């Protein structure tokens, strides 16, 4: 390849390492797979598919009715709608943690601390066990719970801004442990004994029975799903904007990002606050459904599990976080009622051991997670058509 570069007025340098047709084709394949395919569809098709997904998700409580496959999906021995609701708040947590870890690259090992803060605030304001004796309704307590959770995100975020990577991890872990220990050992937070009779979300059927009762978890699941959809929309918008880009830049090289004008402090704090908000959302949902919560709900293992879900699903990818969050709740439960062939014991006892092995296998075969992030590749594809190269 020769060049006219020296005389050319425009800096159209020789295009060294120009992409051969072969490479171009490779690159296109690179963004193949489900997600890439999805990204290439036109917006209407995409919107249609999303709605379809949502509708299917809303119908999940009845999946057991489908002949043959249905019963395979449904977890036996426990209430399926309850299991679905559990999945829904795990998914919320995974979505929130994905903002902190996946987008902003802040390794948070104590994420359920925010879940705890949200749930405790609601409990304090609404449970008859609370010293406050306010006994508010759930709806009234929720905004306060979320605000306090968000605030706690800032409180944790601010002093830890200087910390790098894994130091942050241990501090967040410590933060969650401190919350748990304080909750365990102070009278006001009632420790192991917890708060009972936390009110459920309001609403009645025509016959006067509450929509959100104790016997039927379907309404909770639907509520959870609706919240998830809102969260997805918001988080997606952030990800596809300068906010997401700033997070990414901070994650890659904080100092360079700063020198390029990124306000690292601001964006890190936002990541914490948004993550905490979503975590708190999970917490208030949980408190409203269970009606009870205590300090053991927030053990460290829970945080770790959620993190495993995010990474397993595909850190930095919303669909991945959703899948991962659902799996960490679903897999262990699903082992219930399955017998191992040799000793004929219920595999449920081995659930976490099996789960551990499953995590390893998944990560070995898909180090980037089950649905890896293809955001960047997609963005490019959108643009490639718009700006045609000049030659």
């Amino acid at each position, binding site marked *: 390849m020769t060049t006219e570069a020296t005389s050319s007025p425009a800096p159209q340098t020789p295009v060294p390492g120009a992409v051969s047709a072969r490479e171009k084709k490779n690159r296109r394949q690179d963004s193949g797979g489900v997600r890439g395919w999805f990204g290439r569809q036109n917006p209407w098709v995409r919107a249609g598919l999303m709605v379809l997904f949502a509708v299917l998700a809303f119908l999940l409580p009845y999946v057991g009715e489908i002949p043959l496959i249905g019963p395979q999906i449904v977890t036996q*021995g*426990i*209430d399926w*709608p*309850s299991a679905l609701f*559990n999945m829904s708040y795990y998914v919320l947590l995974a979505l929130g943690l994905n903002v902190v870890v996946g987008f902003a690259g802040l390794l948070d090992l104590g994420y359920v601390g925010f879940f705890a803060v949200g749930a405790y605030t609601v409990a304090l304001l609404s449970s008859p066990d609370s010293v406050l004796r306010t006994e508010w309704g759930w709806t009234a307590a929720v905004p306060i719970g979320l605000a306090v959770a968000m605030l706690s995100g800032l409180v944790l975020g601010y002093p830890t801004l200087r910390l790098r990577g894994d130091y942050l991890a241990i501090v967040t872990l410590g933060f969650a442990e401190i919350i748990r220990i304080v909750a*365990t*050992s102070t009278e006001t937070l009632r*420790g*192991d*004994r*917890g708060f*009972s*009779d936390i009110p459920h979300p309001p609403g009645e059927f025509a016959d006067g029975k509450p929509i959100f*009762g*104790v*016997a*039927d*978890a379907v309404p909770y699941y639907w509520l959870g799903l609706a919240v998830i959809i809102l969260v997805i929309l918001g988080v997606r918008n952030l990800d596809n904007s300068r906010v997401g880009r700033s997070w990414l830049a901070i994650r890659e090289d904080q100092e360079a990002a700063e020198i390029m004008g990124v306000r690292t402090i601001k964006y890190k704090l936002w990541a914490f606050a948004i993550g905490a908000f979503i975590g708190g959302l999970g917490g208030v949902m949980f408190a409203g459904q*269970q*009606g*009870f*919560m*205590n*300090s*053991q*709900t927030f053990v460290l293992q829970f945080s770790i599990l959620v993190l495993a879900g995010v990474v397993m699903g595909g850190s930095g990818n919303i669909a991945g976080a959703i899948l991962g969050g659902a799996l960490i709740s679903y897999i262990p439960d699903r082992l219930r009622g399955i017998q191992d062939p040799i000793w004929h014991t219920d595999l449920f*006892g081995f659930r976490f051991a099996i789960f551990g092995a499953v995590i390893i296998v998944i990560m070995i075969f898909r180090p980037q997670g089950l649905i890896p992030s293809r955001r960047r590749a997609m963005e490019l594809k959108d643009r490639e058509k718009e700006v045609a190269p000049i030659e």
Partner: protein
Amino acid sequence: NSDSGSDDTASGNCGYKLAFFGALTGSSANLGVNIEQGFELAINQYNEKKGSTCIEVAKFDSQGEPGVAPGVARNLVADKKILGIVGPPFSGESEAADPIFEAAGIPTVTPSATRVSLSANGWKTFHRAVANDDAQGPAAGNYIKNVMKAEKVFVANDQSAYGAGLSEVVEKTLGSAVVAKDKTEADGKQTDFSALVQKVVSSQATVLFYGGYYQNAGLIRKALTTAGWKGTLVGGDGMKDPGLAKAAGNAAAVGTITTCPCSPPEKAGGTFVTDYKAKWNVDAGTYSDVAFDAANMFLQGIDAGNTTPEKLNTYLSTVEYKGIANTYKFTDKGELDPNYIKVWTFKFDATGNTIADQEVPTA
């Protein structure tokens, strides 16, 4: 609404379920398992008599964790065939799960949850088949003061609904004899108790009262012995399990005292002791007999045609049932009638088992 679905065809009030709700796994599981086995034995015998699986056993494992219990309770109440529940055994999980049972209107009989305040929630479905800690606590306190004649007592608890509640009552009874206090984490959260032991040793107490369950207690006992402490460990029914000696080592456990608002299971009436051994291949444990009675109380009610949870609940409020361990009659708060209250003390022997010591006064 129809109570039990359409398949209510079996004759003789059959086709229903009774549930056990409590710890089958987890760090204090022994206590839950004892109770479940007593419960299941009763239903088995009933079904054998009927010649069919008339009443089904449903088991729900709460792991004894208050945090886990509500989720499991929701699974329980989703099953519309369940008419009544034996459990929850522990006070903590009761606080967490009973509101759900109350909302669902399913009657519960706990054979063992002793926290005083459980009956103060106005739950209509709550029934307690044993005395509460307002009886057990003073009994323990009096035993320490009057029988052991201890002057310096260290009181610690595991911060659980049960442990904290019981040690509070004991403290009150002991008054100025309490020289120092401390708290530990709940069972299964801690194995190293050297900090607590350090405090006990330097307090020069001769008795440590621990409100908590057997595994922690065993570990504490072991650490105390290792540190050369010569005093006696005393605790409540939560420590009355051979698991304590397993944790502590038999030699260290010898002499440890526990109270229990129950009579020695080996003294239970009828053929219970041998039946139990035959069925489960172990001796009946703490509260196995009470659970057996509770299940039979339900079965008697169902037999009498109380085939909805509501009816069964009403039945419980009026029944006076004579079982193999005790006679049961509930006050309107669901407490055991004061006439039938009793508290015993037990002592660990060199084989790691508890042997009945004496019945103690509760006031």
